[in-house]
């Protein structure tokens, strides 16, 4: 029986820059930051309220995951904002929006009332975008 999601991947263009974005701007915690041989680094972060869900900030480069051509293609796709990698939750959307904006996070959409509730969309330092909303009581 599958019991939980332990790891999820976000493909990033540069791990140093992704570290700064996810840790210093979004406020995530570093879970594991381990050298993996020449030019490779295993970097995972966790959202503050989910210390057991590791988000792998995977550098798009030839090697562990990608061959040369797919790596180039993937970099272009990420840079061009092709991928929406998920939906994050916060306690208060307006407050989180104001805070992240003050930290330089770019929003594709400010908090906006949709038929399913208020939602904002922000972009990470690589070009990946995410939905941001408040916890829903269902």
């Amino acid at each position: 029986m599958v019991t939980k999601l332990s790891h999820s991947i976000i493909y990033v263009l540069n791990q140093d820059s992704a570290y700064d974005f996810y840790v210093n701007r979004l406020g995530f915690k570093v879970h594991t930051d381990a050298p993996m041989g020449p030019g490779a680094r295993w970097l995972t972060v966790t959202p503050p309220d989910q210390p057991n869900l590791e988000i792998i900030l995977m550098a798009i480069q030839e090697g562990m995951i990608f061959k040369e051509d797919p790596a180039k293609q993937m970099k272009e796709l990420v840079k061009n904002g092709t991928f929406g990698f998920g939906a994050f939750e916060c306690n208060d959307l307006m407050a989180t929006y104001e805070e992240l904006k003050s930290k330089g996070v770019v929003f594709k959409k400010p908090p906006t009332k949709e038929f399913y509730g208020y939602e904002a969309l922000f972009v990470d330092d690589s070009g990946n975008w995410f939905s941001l909303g408040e916890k829903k009581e269902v």
Partner: protein
Amino acid sequence: MKMEKFGQTFKSFKMKETEPYPKVYLYKRIVQAKLFIDNHYAEKIDLNNISDEAYFSKFHFIRLFKKIYGKSPHQYLTYVRMEKAKDLLKTDAPITDVCFSVGFESISSFTGLFKRITHKTPSQYQQHELLRQEEMATYPLKFVPNCFVEAKS
């Protein structure tokens, strides 16, 4: 704690008639108060002054802060100090240095609170973290899921 800078920051906010969201200026004040705590946690912060500078009554300020962040300003300040202490204890910094550098004035109150929150004393926590880092540097594949280990090898 010098509050002039904080006050100037707040005074720079003006309510705009064109703001797209109701009471956005209130959010901005509370967010600035939160960011002030984030940036000045190591100093002696008088939380009473923050509500004055934010143009709120103390009661109103605490109520709004708690509604948004789920903690009172004082609880949030303690939370930030503890999180920073945890970060610093991942280095070999002396416990006393960590205690004072995150804004505590007494080792015993720092140690007691730290243990109550993490169920470890600061030195136990530090030992555990340093061992984990040593292991991470020596056996990195131990920290990586199997599928990636296979891809790597």
